[in-house]
């Protein structure tokens, strides 16, 4: 599957970024997600950001889920 965790991008320094989740901070490579900006959430797999998460999509899918669950 490969283990990947959503984390917040705090700082960008060339091809590296400092990311934080639950008070844990680490440096990762953003070489395969060059579009990433500070404040984005990324999925981190083996020390690399592999995709930039979409906050809008996340909210929208949660909204749909809530509707789905309530429509009984």
């Amino acid at each position, binding site marked *: *599957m490969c283990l990947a965790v959503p984390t917040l991008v705090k700082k960008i320094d060339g091809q590296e970024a400092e990311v934080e989740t639950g008070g844990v901070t680490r440096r990762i490579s953003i070489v*395969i*997600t060059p579009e990433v900006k500070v404040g984005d959430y990324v999925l981190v797999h*083996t020390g*690399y950001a*592999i*995709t930039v*998460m979409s906050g809008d999509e996340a909210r929208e899918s949660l909204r749909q*889920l809530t509707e789905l669950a309530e429509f*009984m």
Partner: protein
Amino acid sequence: MNFLDQYRNPEMVRRLADRIHQRSTRPVRLMEFCGGHTVAIMKNGIRQLVPPQVQLLSGPGCPVCVTATADLNKAIGLARLPEVIVVTFGDLLKVPGSDTSLEKVRAEGGDVRVVYSVQDALGIAQKDPEKSVVFIGIGFETTAPTIAASILEAERRGMSNYYVLSLHKLCPPVMKALLDSKEVRLDGIICPGHVSTIIGSRPYEFISRDYGIACVVSGFEPLDILQCIEMLVKQIESGQPKVENAYPRAVRPEGNKEALKIMESVFEVSNANWRGLGEVADSGLRLKDEYRAFDAEEAFEISQRSVSDPEGCICGEILRGIKTPLDCKLFGKGCLPDHPVGPCMVSSEGSCAAYFQYGATSHER
């Protein structure tokens, strides 16, 4: 925006499970391709939440488990070379090859190092220029771009002691091989979420179009997986299979173009050996000619003798979804996480290990 808590909300999970119970009117067979999904399903007891007629099968989606014994022997052979440091992800350490494992070779004095990231392998190579550092490149499309990036980085730094043994595998081609074998009948596929962050959701379109099988890309939280199952059941009940994305916060239809570009600049598609499935056309990645200098297979003499899988072990059939760990005579007896016979008991993502660690109720165990 705390993603994880919301996707683990027990009340939402319960409601969604009820919804699936309402929607589901007939037996369906769904395959979770990805080992990460197998673990999430077992760990959260999702089989206990869905109706019994929704059958969940595990597929060949654990990168460690699908690594052929012959390929493991190559990694083990490299670790025995005195001038070589073998660097690997922890998952591979205990997997038995024909006669030993990387863990045992390390105990005998072989230099085998476990890292969290391939970047650490570059660091090891830079620190010890007298040694040759070989990274064992396992994984699917999720991991392959990171390994490709490490090779580009090694080239940029002018390093001549860094090599990769590329055992990478590709998902859509093996899905096709599995379906063409007609051994397993499926109604729907829970498509791998993190592979799809890279390749997107489009590469699965041939599955719904040519095979009439529902496909939904899923994340790994309990709510993600239930939402995916709900969408699959709905598609199957309506008789209109297509590709849908239940993980839009991470997966775009086109995938991650930069990752694909990096992967394709370093690797080219090749045939690959899969445990249980044998050679599958165009399902692997090898280094392109211009990067051959980084190819461990070129740089070192590695034995290519053919090997058979361990006797009694049915990992191959389990990986093809035609048997479950419970069908194996060795499960929980001769084969345990401490003394694994086959790779499915080693990797925490392997079906056997997941069944053993998390299998909670008698109907699961």
